[in-house]
């Protein structure tokens, strides 16, 4: 190799190091301190995941997750004693952990399942919602669960817990992995895949927003347990307490229930009744003062 090539390689490696270095300083700061300095609270959520984070008919970015993040926002403003800008940024299962660890967002408020391997990278607030993975198929499809899905093409979202469960426990299902929900659903609509597996509530959301909800069936026993949590950077107990207390208070004073009804009640965007078990579970997470 000539000297020119060596120089190019060195410059390239240097650039990589700089890229990493650029992402690192955010680690050195507590989240509340960072928010106080920047004057902005950046929340990562989805744009196509009703009812948690989505763009509604009036082009507003809204959702259950967004509303919970707004409660955290109010608590931050109260704590810091000043007005803080509330900013939303799009995250996907594949990008949310890098976005949070690199400091580009301060809180993930979307359909993020709490898992042990994720807990090694980020910290979670209390469980704020519970669901399980099911199949979304066209009406009349022979697929009614994991057994009948053997040999079929099944769309999943990259980075989701469902993808992992299907890959590891049901190797005879042909996985087709998409970076986001709209692409996975489009593949189902166009017939590129036979089914789409995601958390039941997200499928309910998709179905509710589809042009003809009656064309779609959510089927199969839940194949997973998906407890959702708000995620933040690791080892920042001050901020973690603030998020946890905000949620506990909301469950305690009925604010949570009000928001739940707004999004998932009978007249909500995505009707998905809160089961008694789930409600008891939520209440038991509220610690005494």
């Amino acid at each position, binding site marked *: 190799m000539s000297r020119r090539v060596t120089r190019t390689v060195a410059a390239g490696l240097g650039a990589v190091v700089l890229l990493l270095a650029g992402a690192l300083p955010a680690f050195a*700061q507590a989240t509340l301190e960072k928010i106080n300095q920047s004057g902005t609270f950046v929340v990562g959520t989805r744009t196509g995941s009703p009812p948690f984070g989505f763009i509604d008919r009036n082009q507003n970015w809204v959702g259950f997750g967004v509303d919970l993040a707004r409660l955290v926002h109010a608590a931050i403003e109260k704590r810091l004693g000043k007005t803080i800008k509330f900013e939303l940024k799009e995250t996907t299962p594949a990008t949310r952990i890098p976005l949070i660890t690199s400091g580009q967002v301060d809180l993930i408020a979307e359909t993020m399942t709490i898992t042990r391997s994720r807990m090694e990278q980020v910290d979670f607030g209390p469980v704020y919602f519970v669901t399980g993975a099911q199949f979304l198929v066209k009406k009349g499809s022979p697929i009614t669960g994991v057994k009948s899905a053997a040999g079929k093409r099944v769309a999943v979202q990259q980075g989701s817990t469902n993808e992992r469960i299907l890959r590891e426990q049901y190797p005879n299902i042909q996985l087709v992995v998409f970076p986001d929900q709209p692409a996975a659903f489009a593949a189902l609509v166009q017939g590129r895949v036979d089914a789409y597996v995601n958390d039941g509530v997200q499928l309910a959301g998709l179905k509710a927003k589809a042009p003809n909800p009656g064309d779609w069936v959510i089927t199969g026993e839940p194949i997973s347990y998906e407890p959702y949590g708000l995620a933040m950077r690791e080892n920042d107990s001050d901020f973690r307490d603030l998020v946890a207390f905000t949620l506990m208070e909301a469950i305690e004073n009925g604010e949570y229930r009000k928001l739940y009804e707004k999004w998932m009640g009978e007249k909500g965007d995505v009707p998905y009744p809160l089961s008694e078990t789930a409600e008891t579970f939520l209440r038991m997470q509220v610690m005494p003062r």
Partner: protein
Amino acid sequence: MFRYDFDWSVLWQPPYGEWLLQGILTTLEISALAWVIALVLGCVAGAMRTVPSAVTRTIGAAYVEFFKNVPLLVWMFFWYFGAPQFLPLAVQDWLNRHGVAFVAAVVALGIYHGARFAEVIRAGIQSVPQGQFEAALSTGLGVAEAYRLILIPIALRLIIPPGTNETLNLLKNSSLALTISVAEITFQTRQIEAYTARGFEAITAGTLIYLVLCLVLAGVMSRVEKAVAIPGLIVRGSGPEG
């Protein structure tokens, strides 16, 4: 205070190391196939834009402008979600079962970059002195033969540096195939990130792989350029170093 402990072993631990290798292979396969399509389309459309016939020139220009000016991501979606709809159901079904995403990615990348190659090749043909074309015609060659035997062979030699740039762009743009479920390098780095939550390691690995692939390609092309240079015609490479 926050600290990040790097754990590079996720890059070779099973099955992640294998995923990365598969990703590299897929990227190379898509890129190589798309490159062949792009080069052929580029030569045809590039040549069409330089011929005397106004109709032919317009057709060439229409192809280039239409495909070049729509984002590649849109083309990916079009060839994957849209285009197969126009095929008979049996064909669609067969495609669905036999890697329609891969084919769509190759076609999208090949046709899009064909339009971009066409511009490079057109510039190459136009930079061949007019006398060459006239001399070729005066030896009794037809226009098509003059292009095929004289103009395009010279132009392809002239455009190796900008052509290499386009090739590298094509290689890097192949990463967009992940949006339609093709498991290339970027897809696999994201997959590793999703399984291990080791984003920095995975993305760094992906970055270095693209960097190495591009540098190797550039190195090879620069040798090819020297090897096929026509003495006296191409002055590049005859500077102080050469």
